[in-house]
């Protein structure tokens, strides 16, 4: 289980996360929704132990990381790639081909298996036509598929995703979201920031609605149909107006 208790984070005196408690179980999908600037990405970066919180505890399968860390202390044991993330900006290494981007970290785990697994991922994400190109030669949608493949080949226990379908067409979005559904069978816990309310309603086990740096409401997909807070109701009305 990946959990946070009392997570807090400020930037230059501005509080962006306040007493955030989240539980992500393996084999479940948690969808985080909410307006822009409410701390969703900050929470994801804190959860992935990249931008460390100012206060609180993150627990990864019983291993506690308490904050603030003592000065000069490092994150030990390193939680990656058991816990991995794919960001909205995809961070593919520009000097490596897309294939090498996927294989470089995967070879650390099992080189022979990586060579085999990548073929399955290439087929699944339909990357045959561009897998040996460099990132700058691929479209944003193609790069998003590669970034997903790079994370999935690592067989993480928890996968944190920040609006990874934002640049995809409808077909590719459906494909990736379907793939996320399959991850439940592999007992991977998925934490997904998304604006795809339809996907959240259909596939999420847990919905977390963030507002003003806090978890304003949480629950099963039913909260999308019957929100308890006025703020979520207001947010969903705005979403329905657009879509």
């Amino acid at each position, binding site marked *: 289980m990946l959990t946070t208790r009392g997570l807090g984070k400020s930037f230059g005196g501005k509080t962006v996360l306040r007493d955030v408690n989240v539980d992500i179980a393996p084999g479940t999908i948690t969808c985080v929704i909410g307006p822009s600037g409410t701390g969703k990405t900050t929470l994801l970066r804190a959860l992935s132990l990249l931008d460390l919180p100012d206060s609180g505890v993150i627990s990864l399968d019983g291993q506690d990381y308490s904050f603030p860390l003592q000065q000069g202390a490092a994150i030990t044991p390193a939680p990656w790639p058991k816990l991995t993330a794919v960001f909205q900006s995809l*961070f593919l290494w520009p000097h490596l081909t897309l294939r090498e981007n996927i294989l470089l*970290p995967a070879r650390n785990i099992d080189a022979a298996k990586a060579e085999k697994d990548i073929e399955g991922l290439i087929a699944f994400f339909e990357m045959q036509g561009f897998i040996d190109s460099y990132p700058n030669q*691929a479209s944003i949608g193609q790069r998003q598929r590669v970034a997903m493949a790079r994370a999935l080949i690592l067989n993480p226990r928890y996968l944190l995703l920040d609006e990874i379908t934002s640049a995809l067409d409808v077909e590719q979005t459906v494909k990736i979201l379907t793939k996320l559904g399959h991850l439940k069978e592999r007992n991977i816990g998925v934490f997904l920031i998304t604006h795809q309310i339809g996907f959240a309603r259909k596939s999420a086990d847990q919905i977390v609605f963030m507002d003003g740096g806090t978890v304003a409401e949480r629950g099963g997909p039913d909260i999308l149909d019957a929100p308890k807070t006025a703020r979520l109701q207001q947010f969903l009305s705005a979403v329905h107006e657009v879509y």
Partner: protein
Amino acid sequence: MSVLDILMNYYPAFLSGLWVTMQLSLIIWGSGIVVGGGLGILGARYRIYIGLPSRTVSFLLSGVPILVFLFWLHYPAQAMFDVVIDPFYTGAFTLSVINIFSVADIVRGALVDFPQQYLTAAKVTGLTREQTIFKIQIPLILREILPPLLLLQVMMLHTTLFTSLISVEEIFRAAQRINAQIYRPVEIYTALGVFFLAVCLPVNGFALWLKGRYTRDLSER
């Protein structure tokens, strides 16, 4: 007397001058790349204590013409300290200082401006520290610094000509001496141009090859 005749008749003088030029260049290149590279790395790591002073010196040097710096170290500085130093060493020292701080600027800039997102990706995908350095950081940094670094070294080779003005017997001074004997400036300086082409073109060619081989357009479509 044609250019070829001059080259045939005076090649020992040209070669001797070229040898001094190459010795100067090797000292300047070696010290610039080793010491300047080290200074750049330390400057990026200790930005206040090393980076800032190094940038300040570099900034000040950029405002002083090379010839003025060279003359100042050759005449007033030596008179001030009451020492006489072989012009070759003065020239090598002056140009090395300039190269060291210029290389340090390039290296420090590339390190400080290294896009952190590539390190984030390395971290979350579980790359080791060594893999991150050798597979991600060094290749990307080399790609960025290689072209300006090589261009700088070719430019430093050209600046060795200034040392002739403090009596270093390098190739330009050799050409001047020959010209003083036979007064054929067109042919002699054309011959000098041929020598420089012979030395600089392979270096430039190597720089172009490295650029073509290791640097690509990384801008995203």
